[in-house]
């Protein structure tokens, strides 16, 4: 692994991808592995997720995303005169209104799907149960991007027999990429915190939590504070900035974060989604307010982190924006050390894989 300007460079071989949920590998959710890395002394500990309470302190606030995953993948059929692929997938990413959604179109392949780039404005796709999606305009999260080039994400007008979330629940399936060969029911894509449907893809850092772990954390005095960030599709090209996403941070969560910070306790974000939401609402001193909206915040080492002291997250692909967020927390050198260790120890990548607790300051207990 070398540290270039483009970020950490390494290769995630196929054996390092989690191809199925840990339950299918004979493990419980909380038996996935947990790498704990401390930046102050570069100590890296390899544990199991059920050991998590040992690495947290009374008073620490664990901020969790309570967004639930939706069946965002819908089978769609194109009209014959459009493009060469007829049977495609339409992935719901985020709603702009009750009927207008940001969607991604993908080709169906023998193994997974791949981006479909030749769709056109005005094109109508047939969805299950008489639903129709009409492509209204390209979705261009960055000004000037893509204007005359191929379009991957669209703003689509959905004409459905029922409300889009109810429709997806009935006719859709969870979004799945090629590294997960078999379909799994939606319940495999929910966490113990999932409450409000809206995420196109699972906020996966919370997946390993079980009621027993939550119970042990509460007994220890760790506070759990909820927020919502509905994830959009994650099928970004390398080095592409993450899309804007919808979030809501309750006043009570902001208060819990600010109180803990004033007492010297740590804010531990469960997942990059939580980091994005909290940091969107954090002022320069790390004081967080409640609020809701869309965020296009991208955390870079230059921007830095203001409110979050530690992140529990999965292992990320090279050149992913998530890595730049982790680098903002602990710096390139420590991150390189940790990822070297994860590769050496054959950690598993992706949403069904292993986890990494990464902190800039040590807890009070080792």
């Amino acid at each position, binding site marked *: 692994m070398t540290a270039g300007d483009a970020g950490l460079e390494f290769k995630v071989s196929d054996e390092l991808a989690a191809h199925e949920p840990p339950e299918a590998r004979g493990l419980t959710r909380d038996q996935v592995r947990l790498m704990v890395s401390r930046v102050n002394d570069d100590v890296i500990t390899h544990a199991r997720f059920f050991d998590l309470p040992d690495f947290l302190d009374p008073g620490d606030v664990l901020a969790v995303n309570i967004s639930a995953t939706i069946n965002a993948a819908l089978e769609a059929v194109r009209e014959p005169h459009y493009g060469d692929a007829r049977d495609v997938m339409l992935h719901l990413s985020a709603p*702009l*209104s*009750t*009927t*207008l959604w*940001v969607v991604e179109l993908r080709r169906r392949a023998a193994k997974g799907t791949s981006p479909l780039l030749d769709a*056109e*404005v*005005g094109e109508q796709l047939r969805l299950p149960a008489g639903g129709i999606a009409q492509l*209204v*305009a*390209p*979705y*261009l*999260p960055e*000004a000037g991007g893509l*204007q005359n080039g191929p379009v991957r994400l669209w*703003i689509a*007008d959905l004409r459905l027999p029922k409300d889009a979330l109810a429709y997806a629940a009935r006719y859709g399936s969870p979004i799945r990429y090629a590294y997960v060969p078999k379909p799994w029911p939606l319940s495999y894509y929910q966490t113990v915190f999932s409450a409000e449907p809206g995420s196109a893809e699972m906020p996966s850092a919370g997946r390993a939590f079980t009621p027993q772990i939550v119970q042990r954390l509460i007994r220890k005095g760790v506070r759990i504070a909820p927020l919502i960030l509905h994830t959009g599709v994650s099928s970004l090209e390398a080095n592409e900035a993450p899309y804007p996403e*919808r979030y809501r941070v309750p006043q009570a969560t902001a208060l819990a974060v600010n109180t803990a910070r004033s007492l010297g306790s740590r804010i531990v974000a469960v997942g990059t989604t939580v980091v994005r939401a909290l940091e969107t609402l954090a002022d320069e001193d790390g004081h967080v307010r409640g609020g*809701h*909206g*869309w965020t296009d915040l991208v955390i870079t080492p230059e921007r830095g982190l203001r409110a979050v002291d530690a992140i529990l997250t999965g292992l990320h692909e090279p050149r992913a924006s998530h890595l730049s967020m982790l680098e903002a927390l602990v710096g390139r050198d420590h991150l390189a050390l940790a990822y070297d260790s994860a590769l050496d120890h054959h950690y598993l990548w992706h949403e069904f894989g292993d986890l990494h607790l990464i902190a800039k300051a040590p807890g009070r207990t080792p």
Partner: protein
Amino acid sequence: MKGSSKEKTALITGASRGLGLALARGLAGRGWNLILTARDEGRLRSVRDELATRTHVAAIAGDVTDPIHRYALAVLARGHAGIDAVINNAGALGPSPQPELLDYPVDVLSAVFETNVIAPLGVLQAVRSELKHGARIINVTSDAAVTPYSGWGGYGSSKAALEQLSAVLAAENPSLRVYWVDPGDLRTDMHQAAFPGEDISDRPLPEARVPAFITLLDSDFPSGRYVAAALGPAVVEAA
């Protein structure tokens, strides 16, 4: 049916009824791409279905006082490669019949200002980076903004604020054309609400004022206040 950068795109708020609908129909007939918004989803859908046979229409239901909805308008505008005109037409009359100012519930007045003053500026802030050079901004106002009619203090003062806001915008943005336009009394649901139970059939239909708006969009008049009836619709029809 297809959007292209050669065609012009207009964003119209309050597009499901009255003047907003008439303007949408008028611009559709002239080949403009349309981004339409209104609160009433069902009505907006039927407007979309009607106009989609004539031009490219993106219809998005929502409330312009909601920043999340205004963000969605900006996303749509970007998808259309920028916009040539914003018509801030959505407005709130306030209670019907309208109370005199000393009886006016101030929380309702606040909501009227939210819709008639804050939201139009909020829309412009949201789409500012999507405005093409020389884009036309039309803020729909009223003679009640400049004439102190009894009973029109809430609506009238909000439109007066919108006019001053428009004038300052024009001063601050010489690259834009900002027009605040009094369409005159029209036979609309809002006008009927202002005169509950009265016969307003002597007022012209909103379609009568569309040519005046087209004149403003097609010409290069200086920013300023315009009275639609004075813009000479007959001349425009001949053009």
